């Protein structure tokens, strides 16, 4: 079997793999940038030095064809979701009726991964993105339901279905008040982040939990918005010198690793897409970014702060530098 090495713009190498693998990756939009290629992993050339590789790139499906195929895939996923809804969980996961929680978990991970939002390429058709998000959410909620029932020692029942396509799970505790009232504009907002007027800062009310007195020093009322949209959550955070620890205190989700950790009464599931607006009021500046939840603590580990950590997908270098400088200034200003 002919072997190829393929290099990307970041200097990473895949290979040796067959041309079939390269074709598969190119045709599914997973490999879009080939900057160099090789037949032995030693001597490299531009893709056009390898006509068979170049042919794959030139014959890659045009964007319209990919979008069309993604729409068809979205329809298949929606059909599959409809089939799953209301069926006994053990049938969905192809398990014995009396399967253990571990068996359910293993089967869940295998199945849910197929619908993981990151599997969809960045420019995918919105229908496919939505279908995957719906299936992912349904299965995630089903697994929580299964674990609760097995914990309670009762037979696993189907997840109660309210609508054909389940809505996002309700926000449990809402210390991050106020939740902006959805407006028609917000409902029809496109996928990209759209600037909006700054939301007035809320005052902590009686419903606001006490401040976090652990390593994480910021308080819930410092958040100024938390809004769940169709496929993501939008978070607006007022950043001050005192709460800048959100960029430094968590070992995994911090500015150096390209993220932040929000210690708060809410936890978002792993993988949730988050559009975040950081408001640096003292600097009269806003920084916008998109990221995914990569760390969550729903309270199961009392030694770690409740909340969620996000890794940035998009963060402009200029903004990152500004935030880094802000954090450094804040550290110097600490008593």
């Amino acid at each position: 079997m002919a072997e190829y090495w393929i290099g990307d713009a970041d200097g990473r190498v895949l290979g040796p793999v067959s041309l079939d693998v390269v074709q598969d990756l190119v045709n599914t939009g997973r490999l879009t940038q080939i900057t160099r290629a090789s037949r032995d992993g030693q001597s490299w050339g531009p893709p056009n030095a390898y006509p068979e590789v170049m042919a794959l790139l030139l014959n890659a499906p045009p964007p319209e064809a990919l979008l069309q195929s993604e729409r068809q895939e979205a329809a298949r996923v929606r059909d599959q979701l409809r089939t799953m809804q209301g069926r006994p969980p053990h049938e969905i996961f192809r398990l014995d009726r009396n399967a253990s929680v571990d068996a359910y978990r293993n089967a869940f991970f295998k199945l849910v991964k197929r619908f993981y939002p990151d599997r969809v390429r960045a420019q995918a058709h919105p229908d496919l993105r939505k279908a995957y998000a719906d299936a992912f959410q349904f299965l995630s909620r089903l697994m929580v339901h299964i674990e609760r029932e097995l914990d309670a020692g009762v037979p696993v029942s189907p997840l109660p279905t309210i609508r054909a396509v389940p809505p996002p799970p309700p926000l449990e505790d809402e210390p991050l008040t106020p939740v902006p009232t959805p407006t028609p504009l917000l409902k029809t907002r496109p996928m990209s982040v759209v600037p909006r007027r700054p939301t007035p800062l809320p005052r902590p009310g009686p419903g606001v939990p006490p401040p976090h007195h652990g390593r994480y020093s910021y308080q819930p009322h410092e958040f100024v918005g938390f809004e769940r949209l169709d496929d993501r959550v939008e978070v607006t955070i007022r950043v001050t010198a005192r709460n800048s620890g959100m960029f430094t205190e968590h070992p995994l989700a911090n500015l150096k690793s390209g993220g932040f950790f929000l210690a708060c009464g809410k936890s978002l599931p792993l993988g949730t897409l988050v559009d975040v607006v950081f408001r640096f009021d003292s600097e009269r500046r806003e920084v916008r970014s998109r990221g995914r939840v990569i760390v969550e603590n729903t309270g199961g580990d009392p030694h770690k702060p409740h909340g969620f950590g996000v890794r940035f997908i998009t963060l402009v270098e200029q903004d990152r530098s500004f935030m880094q400088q802000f954090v450094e200034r804040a550290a110097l200003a600490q008593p």
Partner: protein
Amino acid sequence: MPDGSILIVDDDAFVRTLLRDMLANQGYVLVEAENGRAALDRQGPPPNLVLLDLLMPQMSGMEALGQIRDRWPSARVLVITSMDSERLLEEAMQAGASGYITKPFHPVEIASAVERALAA
């Protein structure tokens, strides 16, 4: 308590840290390398398990996989990749991987896959 040494090979320091964090409390000896070359340059006893990314600079995971199998025949190798291609994973298995984990992964999934690979 599980017993075993695990070599984590991924060019993304964040992924290495994430894996280390997920496995840290389970009694494994964890070692990291940032690419296939660095993994193979490592001295010391062979690892029981290698968690190997496929797309890396200098020496790719597939290339490292063959050499790891030659150098440490007893080591199991779990391929970790975000390139969710059945053909690619088939070729990785043919090249000697014991199994694969596709990114993104969940802590429970990693723990379970590692446990199974070490027990096999």
